[in-house]
């Protein structure tokens, strides 16, 4: 494999378990938040990671950035193993991989003008002379669509969209190779969401970064990503091109997610999943989705399906039924509204 073919980021069989205590005198339970996640991101590629709360998508984001160390598996960045969190090697890498959070107001320091905050990564990583730093801050602010006078404003004096632009500018100021966005638009108003989505697509194309876009919103993921991975309870259950997943989802969970997208003039019947989102502390055996799955077969209750290409068309899906290994179970449970 030549350097240009080597993925920017590759994560192999990542697993992360947390210990929690239930109640004041409760026993300690192990929660496997991420359970065997493998993913790669190439330079110039955006991978969308979609799933519901508690599915482990944010933990996956922290693992690939090395903010948390996986209990199992390995992350490689630019061909080399990720150094441990807090080590000098990791600190040096951090300027090449940056993170954008959901809520811009809590990601920014309310007491400092945003210009200083955008500049801070350059100071931390000792990049350039003060004059060069000034020039870089001005440049990146223009790139994200902020006016020069915004530099002197405090976060509360900016609108929601401007704040998220400032957060993105701060992440981009060091010219990172990888940008991880964790629900970057969910806290924003609808009209502002479109602005930020356009900005992310445009910046990614222009700067050629790799991007991991974490979201619960399949519409937004389609708009931004080149490839989509659907997560359920700590595992990737399906992976493919955005339109493949949206128009012909293979995994029953992806099918339910797609059919739950509210859509003007929608005529197709909606698959309403039974039951609550699963509790990672109480992971069902076999396929974790089987208690809510409309096509559960006997084998799904005992054997965890692996993510692998489907024989018919090569779609990567972790489902015994979609793989054609077992016949669909009781379809009677499928409730259409």
């Amino acid at each position, binding site marked *: 494999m030549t350097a240009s073919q080597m993925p920017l980021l590759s994560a192999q069989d990542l697993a992360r378990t947390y210990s929690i205590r239930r109640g004041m005198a409760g026993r300690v339970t192990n929660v496997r938040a991420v359970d065997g996640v493998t993913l790669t991101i190439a330079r110039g590629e955006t991978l969308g990671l979609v799933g519901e709360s508690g599915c482990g998508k944010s933990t996956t984001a922290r693992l690939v950035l090395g903010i948390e160390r996986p209990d199992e598996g390995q992350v490689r960045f630019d061909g080399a193993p990720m150094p441990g969190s807090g080590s000098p090697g990791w600190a040096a890498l951090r300027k090449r991989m940056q993170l954008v959070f959901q809520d811009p107001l809590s990601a920014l320091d309310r007491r400092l003008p945003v210009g200083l905050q955008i500049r801070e990564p350059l100071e931390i990583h000792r990049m350039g002379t003060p004059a060069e730093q000034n020039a870089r801050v001005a440049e990146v602010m223009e790139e994200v669509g902020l006016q020069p006078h915004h530099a002197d404003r405090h976060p509360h004096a900016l609108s929601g969209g401007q704040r998220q632009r400032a957060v993105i500018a701060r992440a981009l100021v060091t010219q990172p190779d990888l940008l991880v966005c964790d629900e970057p638009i969910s806290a924003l108003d609808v009209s502002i969401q*479109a602005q930020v989505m356009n900005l992310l697509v445009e910046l990614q194309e222009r700067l050629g970064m790799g991007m991991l876009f974490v979201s619960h919103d399949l519409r937004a993921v389609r708009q931004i990503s080149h490839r989509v991975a659907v997560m359920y309870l700590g595992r990737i259950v399906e992976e493919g091109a955005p339109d493949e997943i949206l*128009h012909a989802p293979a995994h029953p969970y992806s099918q339910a997610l797609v059919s739950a*997208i509210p*859509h003007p*003039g929608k005529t197709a019947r909606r698959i309403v999943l039974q039951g609550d*989102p699963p509790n990672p502390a109480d992971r069902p055996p076999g396929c974790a989705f089987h208690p809510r799955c409309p096509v559960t077969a006997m084998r799904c209750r005992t054997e965890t399906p692996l993510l692998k290409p489907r024989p018919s068309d090569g779609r990567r899906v972790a489902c015994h039924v979609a793989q054609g290994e077992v016949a669909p179970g009781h379809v009677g449970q499928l409730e259409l509204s």
Partner: protein
Amino acid sequence: MAFVQIRDMSVAFGSAPALRGISLSVERGEALGLVGESGCGKSITWLAALGLLPRSAKVGGSVLLDGVELIGASPSVLEPVRGGRIAMIFQDPASSLNPVHRIGHQIAEALALHRGLTGAPARAEVIRLLDQVGIPDAKTRANAYPHELSGGQNQRVMIAMALAGEPELLVADEPTTALDVTIQAQILDLLGTIRRDTGMGLVLISHDLGVVSETCSRIAVMYAGRIVEQAESAAIFANPSHPYTRGLLGAMPPISGPRQKLVSIPGSVPEASRMPQGCAFAPRCSEAIADCTRVDPAAVTVEANHLAACIRATPAKTGTRTPERVLA
């Protein structure tokens, strides 16, 4: 006559206007969607109608419920309305429920208040309501505390509590915003079922045009304390006549077709204390002309049952198209 008739309602906090003249009606049993971004006044409209705003709010205009005026009405008029004839549920069920009381007890409180039920009949009704909103094993679950239930189940409990007063109209304020996508589908489905079973009317307040379009037959779009467009759902999507509505539709990523740049609305919502001259949307509007910053446009009829408050909206020639009710 409409069940609820709101005429020229205004609300101001100090010198900052939150609502700037709203006229809206809800028919008996109708499902109306109220759409807009944060701060546009979509929640304030209903809090003001039910007299639930703090005293510092200056409320003007008129809200008639079955012909009875609610604005400035005495508590003896308002109390049977709140939760009795018009019930409300909110975005975050966990903060609307009392964490130290069992959910059955909280629903029973509403039953005692609105229907005078106590003891065994109340207990039976609590279980029937929990059953109706799809809580499995209602008898046992009635003894649970809110923290023992998931967000979706807590929202079901809130709906059960709202149904306790047998309301004629349910105002649901972003009821699914805090919930996961698959749970949102369950709750919208439940609201539809309840409406079919009871004939209850629904006002669904949401920032998401998609959510509203699936649930409601008519939609009102709000911007900066005004209703800028209202029409049947199908007409809003087929023939959006206010540039803001078109902007909201363009801002929604499509689920099929080529992926291209979204048509986003530049800038952001004006602050109430710095409302622009003329049309409040003009500074962000790509179609604005000189007059837009001088005249605050009144709603014009673009076609039957379709109003838009834009000076560039022109009435359609009559008979060119009939609004179909595909989303009823």
